[in-house]
């Protein structure tokens, strides 16, 4: 290459392939190799709701500053799908790189980009693999060529393949041989004419690579989950499948070798939530995982669990709705639905993890909160977190013992009955915190049994339609939520000296906000940032609203749902809130946030 200045560890690669062609192996292999070089990486899988034959994209970003948000333009495109080539070329930055098979037509290729043509067919032919494996192997050609272009240590590619194929040497070798052949071909035949380079750095010490669904499953396992009922739905399926994978490994009773967690694939979401609530009522740490359409089906039972005060954890890995919407695209569109889910007055406890690590953390914490407050807890993740590969700090073992809440077994009940003059009522607020004591089926004390129902009941769980009792019991339930703050993850406040605006955001919008704040600060727009991690809201949110005159609420939906809820609970500050909501199915980019805020600020 000439005298062009290198661009080191700061580039975005889009791999354009046909779905079902096995490109995920190749793409994550590159990602893992860069990660092993110590470079912060992030990736977005943009895929269709389809099994085979449709265009699919994998966008991989390497960034030495650790920014993980999606970027809108590519520096490098690996174009393996001839039908979308023209589209891909449009998204290349000037000076960018196009890698493509040498048999693709290239009439309309821009002149301000660098093109490397790869002899894919030739190298695959020479690889001597079964014809049925050729498609999969052909992706390894671009792995090899790209490794040469960027300067990736080929040994790291082997390590990544070894991990992917779980050490199966035959599979590793047949793939790696193609990578080496392609790398050598590139070395002998290509001249590097682009500036993009990967160099070893120490940007990911203490980090691992995982997706949110895996992290959530593992967190749940460390939270002592005992019962899981689920029904397949994109993008939540791999959460339950991860439970299937890791439960047998981690959850055998140490003394007997028996299973301590039951997983049931139910007939639908109506049944999944019914089973989970039955188990939660029975005293098991119980959960289900789903996405918007499933949650809509679950809403009636969630209302019952709220009113009958049954702990259960519900993971909602959000996708684009309403209706079937875009099943394979990401959104934060279920927030208001979840907050008020099911008919009648209500407030849900909602947890919103803002990193993969927090998926693990909230995985175990959600059970403590659900059992402490005796209520459903909904954890809002989304497709971007759930299904994309991320780098994240290592999972940390829970820093506190399990909290089973106010449960009375035989001995406890006997003692408490003496203390309470022989009176125990399932819904009696004896401690004044709104949280009653519960017994569990199987308790052999003759006073333990009670009748649970979704119909109106008094403090002793007896049916009643008396107006004053309804109001008393219903207000007492509300009290639990008003006093819930000590049990919920606190919001995260990031201040900046000389801040003139506030930003509120949550979940997977966080990486874009983090990066956007730095870009905005360079432009002279300095900001304080409050990341919401749990609902209901408390004084910390109110203080943030009170101390900023203009607050952008950044989120991945059309209507600005987080802003809507802030308006509901803090109407006095409603006029300070500026909607910064965007929904096109793709993860938010920092550029969008910057443009949006700048546009308003400059008016």
């Amino acid at each position, binding site marked *: 290459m000439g005298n062009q200045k290198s661009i080191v560890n700061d580039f975005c690669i889009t791999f354009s392939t046909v779905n079902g062609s096995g490109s995920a192996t190749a793409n994550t292999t590159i990602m893992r190799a860069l990660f092993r070089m110590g470079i912060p990486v992030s990736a977005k899988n943009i895929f269709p709701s389809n099994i085979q034959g449709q265009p699919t994209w994998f966008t991989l970003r390497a960034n030495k500053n650790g920014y993980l948000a999606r970027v809108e333009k590519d520096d490098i495109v690996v174009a393996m799908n001839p039908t979308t080539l023209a589209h891909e070329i449009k998204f290349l930055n000037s000076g960018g790189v196009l890698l493509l098979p040498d048999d693709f037509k290239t009439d309309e290729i821009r002149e301000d980009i660098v093109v490397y043509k790869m002899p894919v067919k030739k190298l695959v032919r020479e690889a001597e693999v079964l014809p049925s494996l050729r498609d999969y192997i052909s992706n390894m050609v671009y792995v090899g060529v790209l490794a040469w272009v960027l300067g990736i240590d080929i040994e790291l590619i082997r390590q*990544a393949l070894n991990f992917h194929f779980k050490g199966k040497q035959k599979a590793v070798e047949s793939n790696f041989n193609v990578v080496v052949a392609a790398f050598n071909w590139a070395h002998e035949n290509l001249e590097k004419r682009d500036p993009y380079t990967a160099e070893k750095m120490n940007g990911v010490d203490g980090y*691992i*690579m*995982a997706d949110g669904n895996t992290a959530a499953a593992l967190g749940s*396992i*460390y939270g*002592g*989950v*005992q*019962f899981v*009922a689920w029904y397949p739905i994109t993008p939540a399926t791999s959460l339950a499948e991860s439970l299937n994978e*890791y439960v047998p490994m*981690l*959850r055998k*009773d*140490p003394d*007997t*070798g*028996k*299973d*301590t*967690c039951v997983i049931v694939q*139910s007939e*639908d979401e*109506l*049944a999944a*939530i*019914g*089973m*989970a*609530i*039955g*188990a*939660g*009522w*029975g*005293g*098991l740490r*119980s959960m289900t995982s789903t996405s918007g359409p499933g949650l809509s089906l679950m809403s009636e*039972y969630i209302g*019952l669990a709220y009113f009958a005060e049954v702990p259960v954890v519900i993971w909602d890995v959000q996708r684009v709705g309403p209706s079937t919407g875009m099943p394979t695209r990401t959104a934060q569109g279920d927030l208001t639905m979840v907050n008020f889910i099911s008919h009648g007055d209500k407030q849900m406890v909602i947890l919103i993890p803002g990193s993969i690590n927090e998926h693990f953390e909230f995985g175990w914490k959600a059970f403590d909160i659900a059992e402490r407050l005796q209520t459903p807890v909904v954890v809002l993740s989304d497709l971007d977190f759930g299904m994309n590969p991320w780098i994240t700090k*290592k*999972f*940390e073992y*829970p820093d506190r*013992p*399990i909290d089973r809440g106010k449960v009375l077994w035989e001995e406890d009940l006997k003692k408490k009955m003496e203390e309470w003059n022989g009176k125990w009522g399932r819904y009696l607020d004896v401690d004044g915190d709104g949280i009653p004591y519960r017994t*569990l*089926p*199987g*308790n*052999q004390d*003759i006073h*333990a*049994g*009670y*009748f*649970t*129902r*979704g119909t109106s009941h008094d403090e002793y769980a007896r049916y009643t339609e008396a107006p004053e009792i309804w109001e008393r019991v219903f207000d007492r339930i509300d009290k639990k939520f008003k006093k819930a703050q000590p049990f919920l993850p606190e919001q995260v406040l990031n201040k900046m000296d000389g801040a003139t605006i506030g930003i509120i955001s949550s979940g997977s919008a966080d990486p874009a906000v983090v990066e956007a704040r730095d870009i905005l600060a360079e432009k002279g727009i300095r900001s304080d940032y409050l990341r919401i991690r749990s609902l209901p809201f408390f004084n910390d949110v109110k203080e943030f609203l009170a101390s900023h005159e203009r607050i952008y609420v950044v989120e991945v939906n059309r209507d600005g749902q987080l802003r809507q809820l802030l308006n509901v609970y803090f109407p006095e500050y409603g006029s300070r809130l500026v909607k910064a909501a965007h929904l096109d199915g793709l993860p938010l980019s920092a550029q969008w946030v910057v443009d949006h805020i700048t546009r308003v600020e400059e008016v």
Partner: protein
Amino acid sequence: MDQSLLNQVQNAVNKVGLTRNDYRGASSTLCQGCGHNGIAAQIVAACYEMNLVPEKVVKFSGIGCSSKSPTYFLGRSFSFNGLHGRMPSLALGALFADHTLKGIGLSGDGDSASIGLGQFKHLVRRNLPMVYIVENNGVYGLTKGQFSATADKGLSLKKQGTNPYLPVDIAMEALVANASFVARSFAGDPKQVKELIKAAIAHTGIAVIDIISPCVTFGNHEESMHSYTFGKEHEEPLHEISFVPARDEITVEDFEEGTTRDVTLHDGSQVVLKKLEKDYDPTSRWDALRMLEQAQENNWLVTGLIYVNPNQPTMYDMYNLPDIPLNRMTEKQIRPPKDTMQQVNDMMF
């Protein structure tokens, strides 16, 4: 019965030291003469005679008149009145909390034959050990008398007109879903109801009992299969049934040699079926289906033990469950030890 004899009966204790009173629930708020009340009384009797401890029983129900009735028996037991048609899922989750408990589900035709048909059949297909009673009256009572999915075709109700659809047959649906125990009875035949409930309690697996239980307010029309008159006139018992608990001496004095058929349940107890005219084998699914088809053609209300397979694996057999109930597990048993955290992090990339 004179007063002293009555006291004696009421105060008699069973093998677990409980009187009949210990199995009662709150007073019924259902209509006087409702078939469901009779069934509740037979559940009380069956549990008393089976020496069940109320704390070892959990009751479940959905929505409807039938689903209100768990309030009226076993007042000491835990109970969960869930959503319309979705008692099966609730029961499934709850029973995994303590698999040593006996589940009794109370449902109706509105609950199990319409919205609940899916959950009902999937529960049956999983063979979750529990008693599943459908109090079947062919109408929606709480909403004041609409046709349910089990109402006879051609039946007329004052406000509803004539029912144009063929009925769902609960017993048939259970059989087709591979139920391991299917029975049908009639609320006006309390002895048979009780014996079938006892057999159902002893059965290891799901035991479905479809009990025709007339609605005295909205559905007790003489021509309706779900009426007392029809039931009394058209009931065709397959056999006279007696239940003999495990380890009790089997006394078959009522049963002449050669005219009985015994079915040994998984716990060793026996159902003794006295043959009537028909030679019926309740261990053959095919015979059961044919019999139900024939009954439908002939407009018979066939009652008795329709099908039983005591050895069908249950849902618990699909899991390697610990002996102690899952809901009694300690933190040490459910949270992986700290040293596994590093291994898990190493498993990620």
